[in-house]
C-alpha cells in the first residue's frame, strides 16, 4: 500500500510537470514567453485549484459520511458561484477581493445549510445529495435571474466566467490563490487523524476524544474559503472533488492518512491534465476546462450511484 501510494504521488507529480509540454513546440524568445508566462502559471493555478477541489471532496465525503458528497454535489460550488455571479452581474466595483468575498459568503451559507440537513437526524445518504441538488438548481435559477437584470457587458463577463477556465498571463493567479488555499490545505491535512476517527461514527468519535463541533466548523470553514477562492478566480469547475478521492481510495485503500494528501496531489494533476485536453481538443481553439471535467465527471457520478445502489 505504501509503495502504491508513493507510486501514485510520483506519477502525478511527473505528469503535472510534463503538462507544460502539451501544445505546439516552443522555440526562441516567443517560446520562452509562452512557457514561462502562459503555460507554467496555468499549470500552477490548475494544480492549486484541482488540489483544493479534490482535497475538499475527500474531507466532505468523510464529514458527511457520504461517498457522493463533494463541494460540487453538496452545493458549496453552487453557493460560491451564486455569490460571485451576483458580484459580476451587478458589476460591483472592487475587483477580485469583492468577488472573493461574495463567493465566500455564498459557499459558507450553502455548506452550512446542507450540513444542517445532514445533521437533522435520520438524513439518508440521498437526502444530503438532494439538498445539494436543490441548492444547485436554486442557484442556477437565481443566476439566470441575475443575468436577466444585468447589462450586456456584465452578462458576457459572467457567461465566460461561469464555464470555468484556467487561462492566464503571468503569476497573478498563483499569488492570489496560494495564500488563500494553501493554509486551508494545511488545516484539512492536519485534521486527518480527527477525520479518520470521525469516519467510524460521530458519537463514537466524540467518545474517543474528537471535538466534533470544532472539527465540523474547521472543515467547513477551510473548505468554503478555499473553494470560494478557486471559484472566484476560475469559475465553477465541477466533479473534481467527487471523482479524484474515489480513484485514490480504490488504489491505496480508505485510510485518510493516505487519501487526503494523495487526493491533493492527484486532484492537482487531474485538473492540469483536463486542461491540457481542453487546450488540445481542437487546434487553435480552447474548450473551458469546466466542460472537460463535467464531461468526465457526469458519467463517473452515474457509475458511483450504480455502485452505491448495488452495495
Amino acid at each position: 500500500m505504501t509503495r502504491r501510494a508513493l507510486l501514485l504521488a510520483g506519477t502525478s507529480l511527473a505528469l503535472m510537470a510534463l503538462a507544460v509540454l502539451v501544445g505546439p513546440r516552443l522555440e526562441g524568445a516567443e517560446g520562452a514567453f509562452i512557457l514561462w508566462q502562459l503555460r507554467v502559471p496555468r499549470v500552477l493555478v490548475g494544480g492549486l485549484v484541482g488540489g483544493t477541489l479534490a482535497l475538499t471532496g475527500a474531507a466532505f465525503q468523510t464529514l458527511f459520511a457520504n461517498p457522493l458528497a463533494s463541494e460540487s454535489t453538496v452545493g458549496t460550488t453552487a453557493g460560491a458561484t451564486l455569490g460571485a455571479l451576483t458580484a459580476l452581474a451587478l458589476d460591483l466595483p472592487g475587483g477580485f477581493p469583492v468577488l472573493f468575498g461574495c463567493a465566500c459568503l455564498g459557499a459558507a451559507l450553502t455548506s452550512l445549510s446542507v450540513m444542517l440537513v445532514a445533521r437533522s437526524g435520520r438524513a439518508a445518504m440521498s437526502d444530503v445529495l438532494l439538498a445539494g441538488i436543490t441548492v444547485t438548481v436554486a442557484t442556477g435559477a437565481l443566476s439566470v435571474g441575475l443575468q436577466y437584470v444585468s447589462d450586456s457587458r456584465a452578462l458576457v463577463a459572467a457567461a465566460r466566467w461561469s464555464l470555468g477556465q484556467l487561462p492566464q498571463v503571468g503569476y497573478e493567479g498563483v499569488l492570489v490563490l496560494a495564500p488563500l488555499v494553501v493554509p486551508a490545505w494545511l488545516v484539512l491535512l492536519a485534521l486527518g487523524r480527527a477525520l479518520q476517527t470521525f469516519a467510524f461514527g460521530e458519537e463514537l468519535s466524540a467518545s474517543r476524544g474528537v471535538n466534533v463541533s470544532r472539527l465540523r466548523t474547521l472543515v467547513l470553514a477551510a473548505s468554503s474559503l478555499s473553494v470560494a477562492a478557486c471559484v472566484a478566480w476560475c469559475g465553477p469547475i465541477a466533479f473534481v472533488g467527487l471523482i479524484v478521492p474515489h480513484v485514490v481510495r480504490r488504489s491505496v485503500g480508505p485510510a485518510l492518512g493516505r487519501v487526503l494528501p494523495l487526493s491533493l496531489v492527484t486532484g492537482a494533476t487531474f485538473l492540469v491534465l483536463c486542461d491540457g485536453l481542453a487546450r488540445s481538443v481542437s487546434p487553435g481553439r480552447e474548450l473551458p476546462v469546466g466542460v472537460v471535467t463535467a464531461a468526465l465527471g457526469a458519467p463517473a457520478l452515474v457509475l458511483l450511484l450504480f455502485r452505491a445502489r448495488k452495495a
Partner: protein
Amino acid sequence: MKSLALEGVSVRVGARTLLDDVSLELRTGEFLALVGPNGAGKTTLLRALLGLIPTTAGRVLVGTEPLSALTARARAAEVAWLPQQPPPAEPVPAREAVMAARYRFDETRAVTRRAAEHALERVGLAGRAAAPLSELSGGERQRVAVAALLAQEARFLLLDEPANHLDPAQQGETYALLGRLLESDVGILCITHDVNLLNHVRAAPRVAGLRGGKLGFTLELGAPELPERLSELFGVRMLALRAGSSRLIVPAPPDTPGGEP
C-alpha cells in the same frame, strides 16, 4: 479508587422521560451489569455517562468533577464506549479501526499501531490485523470493537451488549476478559440481557435493574432475591437453577411448575 457517578440524573426529550432521577455509582475495580426490558433507558443511561446527551436534571461526575467540565480528550481518558452495533463491514483494515480509538493519545503512528495490534492480540485476532472489516464475520467485527475499547485505555468502560453477534464460547471469553481487566483498576458498566454470562467474571459483579427510566434495584449477583427482582423487572417468571458452583437464572418455560425459588 475513583468513581463515575450519576447524581439525580433525568433526561427528557420532548414530552418523553427517558431517565427519571437516576443515581448510580461505578467505582474502579468494580463490574456493574445493567439489565432491563427493551426501552428501559439503558442505552440512554450509557450515553449520559459518556456525555453524549445533555441531562435535563442532575449531574454526571468523574470523581468530584463534573464530566461536562472536561475537554473531549480528557473525557476519553475517563470513559470509553462499546456501542451496540459492531463497526460496519467496510474495506477498512481491522488494525485501522482499532487505531482510531487511540485518538486521545499524542503519539507517533508506529506507537498507535503497536498498541492496536496488542489490543487485537488480546481479543484473539492477532493474525487478522490487516484483514478488512468487510471480510470479517459479525463476531470478529464485534471483537475488533472490543479491541478498540481496550486500546483507548480509559478508566471506565461502558459496554452496550458486548456479547452481541458472538457464539457461546466467545461470549464466555469476552466476559472473562472483561473480568480480568478489573485487576488493572478499571471500572466496567455493561448492559446485558443475560445475567448468567456474569458467572464468567471472577470478581463479584453487581446487577442494577432499570425500568421505565427508573432504577429499580442494585444487588450482588449472588443475592438470593435477584431471581424474583428480575421476574418483576421483565414481567416474566424466572427460575434459578444450580450448575456446579454457579446459579443460572432463566425464564421459565410455559407450564413449568415450581422451581427455585
